[in-house]
């Protein structure tokens, strides 16, 4: 089943993209990166086009989801549409494949446990309004 990219995240601003298949895989529980067939560079978030050699020949590759926390912040103010979720923790993590991921930390993680360098697991998350995203959970 085709899922529009517009369903990505709590609020989406982009609905049309060459990497819309990302949503199909996410629905199957897989978080996919793209790899340039020409130079071999891995991209996450996935890109359809490689700027290094102008190639559009990309293949999908699943990420293991194993990550380490690089930095984070707990937001107490939010843009329109996110206020009901406050406070929430935005994180940047590094995946074992070397790419980085920007996502929220799971609400299951106790604030006191959060520390830079902690092991995390990137996982798909279905939201109550039929949308889908990914989050960083405790490993």
């Amino acid at each position: 089943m085709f899922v529009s990219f517009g369903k990505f995240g709590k609020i989406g601003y982009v609905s049309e993209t060459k990497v819309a298949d990302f949503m199909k895989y996410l629905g199957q529980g897989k978080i996919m990166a793209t790899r340039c067939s020409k130079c071999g560079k891995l991209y996450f978030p996935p890109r359809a086009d490689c700027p290094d050699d102008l190639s559009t020949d990309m293949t999908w590759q699943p990420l293991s989801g194993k990550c380490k926390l690089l930095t984070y912040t707990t937001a107490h103010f939010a843009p329109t549409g996110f206020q009901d979720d406050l406070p929430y923790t935005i994180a940047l993590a590094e995946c074992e494949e070397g790419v980085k991921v920007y996502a929220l930390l799971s609400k299951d993680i106790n604030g006191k446990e959060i520390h830079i360098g902690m092991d995390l697991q990137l996982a798909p998350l279905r939201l109550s309004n039929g949308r889908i995203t990914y989050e960083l959970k405790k490993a």
Partner: protein
Amino acid sequence: MNVAIVGVGQTPFSRNCGISIRELCFDAFREALEDLNLTPKEIDASIVCSAPEYDKQRSPAGLISEYLGLNPQPTFYAESICSSSSTGVKVGYSFIKSGLHDIVAVIGFQKMSEISSAEVQERMGRGADIQWESPFGTMMPAGYAMYARAHMQKYGTTEEQLAKVKVKSGKYSLVNPLAMFRRAVTVDECLKARVIASPLKMFDCCANADGASCVIMASEEKAKKITDTPVWVAGIGAASDTLSTTSRTNLTGLDCAIEAGNQAYKMAHIEPKDVDVAEVHDCFTIAEIMAYENLGFCKPGEGGKLIEESQTYIGGKIPVNVDGGLLSKGHPIGATGGSQIRTIVLQLQGRAGKTQVDGAEVGLVHNIGGIGLYGNVTIFKR
């Protein structure tokens, strides 16, 4: 051929200024032309700078150039969010250097009260990569907070040191009549203020404002006829970084600022130690600490110590933001760079009043757009 700044102007920065954008720009323009041997008709190009998402007026350059009496000369629009007017100055420099134009007015403005709080709130969410990062509810303070957290982890920078940047800002705001917040604050007040995005609290963050700035630039030949006190553009650097956080490698400094600074120092043939007074983009306290390091005023990781030792006050190693900075002045996005340049020009002309740095000959402006997205460093000499 050298390029000079011959005139500078700025309106008070405030909330709900009560006048229209054309009038704001006029007030800054009028100050910039004061005491100059120059009429608007002799200005042969204008560059208008703002962040369009806060404007109701479509294509503001048309409106502003008309109101300032700058038709039929060509007018241009420059945008790099918070560093738009520094970008305008770089474009103006290129116009003059190329011989296309001799005298250029760079007008920066923003009336952030023009749109409702709800509209501001909505726009804030779209400052990041809208496909992959905005869907997580991020905004400006969160972006800088992530740098602050990483800086604290790597270098041991403390929340007290961040607070001390605001304490300095508050001190100098008391003698800047154009600043929006004119009040001294203590470290304790800063630490107890409500959290915006941890570890940044209210006093770690600058505030939206209404305001305008104007910088008049001229070729060497014209400058000498216009004023007895031209200030020379000695070096200009500009760089960009990735919009997406996931593509950044340096999480404890802004690479675009390092690159822009290196370009400007090289062009001006000076080193960081030669700078007598600096204006840096302190949209957040951590941004000022990273600026110290990125501009070479101290080593990476020693920014916290530099403020701790009061080395960025007047009388210290390198006075920084002695007009109160964005933290006290407020941050009317498109006007900010021009306001920073005005402060440095007044310093180099010996007209800075109570915050005059004695004998200042070399000044530097560091103006950043976005979360380390656009870096602009400009060096001026007397």
